[in-house]
């Protein structure tokens, strides 16, 4: 019986706490991916808004356009 004690101690030491250890690299990867993606999308949206505003101003300056008509206001009616 006493000869089994070291074996029992070895087996007990190999059993984990039942809880995942570490894994911080997964956590950091998740947060970095989230923040970078949101920042890139915000930047992309800002660039698209600028381009759209420039295009709208360009079209508003065209002589064939009816100056009395404002399609954006009409959309909001």
């Amino acid at each position: 019986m006493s000869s089994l004690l070291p074996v029992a101690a070895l087996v007990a030491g190999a059993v984990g706490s039942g809880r995942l250890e570490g894994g911080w690299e997964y956590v950091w990867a998740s947060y970095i991916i989230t923040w970078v993606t949101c920042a890139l999308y915000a930047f992309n949206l800002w660039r698209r808004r600028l381009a759209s505003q420039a295009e709208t101003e360009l079209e508003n300056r065209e002589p064939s356009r009816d100056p009395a008509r404002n399609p954006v206001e009409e959309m909001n009616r």
Partner: protein
Amino acid sequence: MPAWLTLIPLSLLVALFAVHLASPSARRWVWKVLAVQGLLMLISGAYLGLVWAPTEMMMGDVYRIIYAHVPLVWAALLGLGINAIGSIVYLAHKGWLTDCLCEASAEVGVLFGSLGVLLGAIWAKPTWGVWWTWDPRLTSAATMLIIGAGYLTLRRFIDDPDKRATWSAVVGIFSGVDLLLVWYSVKVWNSLHQVQSTQQTVDPNILRPMYWNAVGFLCLAFVFIWHRFVLARETRAREVALPSALPGGLPSTASVGGSR
């Protein structure tokens, strides 16, 4: 962290949203306030999630992905839900502003949903041992995103604004049906994905940072949807506004007004 603390920024978000709807002049600054609020909440939420929240009993520190994964998925469901409801409204009462809102909410919903599913896969690897499994919730979420991506692709390939709005509205409704599947899948089927956490099943110190981050992502979602909506509105105004100098003085074929 007291339970009522998250109610303050949530109330501010709701109040500012109401002001945004009620007052056109306020729309110039409401999104800026919510952008700052969202950013501050996400920075403090990262601290709460990564440092303040306790270690989970079985998942250790890996569970901290929950503070990004769950809020992203909630925001995605909100975005795609707005798209689904907007699609039904559009088919009932056609209006360009409704179509613009559908376009905006779909794009933001697909973005946040894709991020949410990606983070779920990153979380699954150390906990389930696999990056992906054909679990009901994961499968229905992937289906919802594929339909959402199909919605956005369809809109890119149809030039006629009227057809584009109508056909994509039909697709948007399918996305909404799948959204319900995503929500109820863990309750209806025997799923590997855990069921909804509640205050009865999870330590409040784990749940409260999640609600804090959820409000932060909601603020971010509002700002994104608003700007995407304005972009869609400007594009639509250019598409449907024909120059008056047409041969024979033909009128516009599609009215730009709110309802036809």
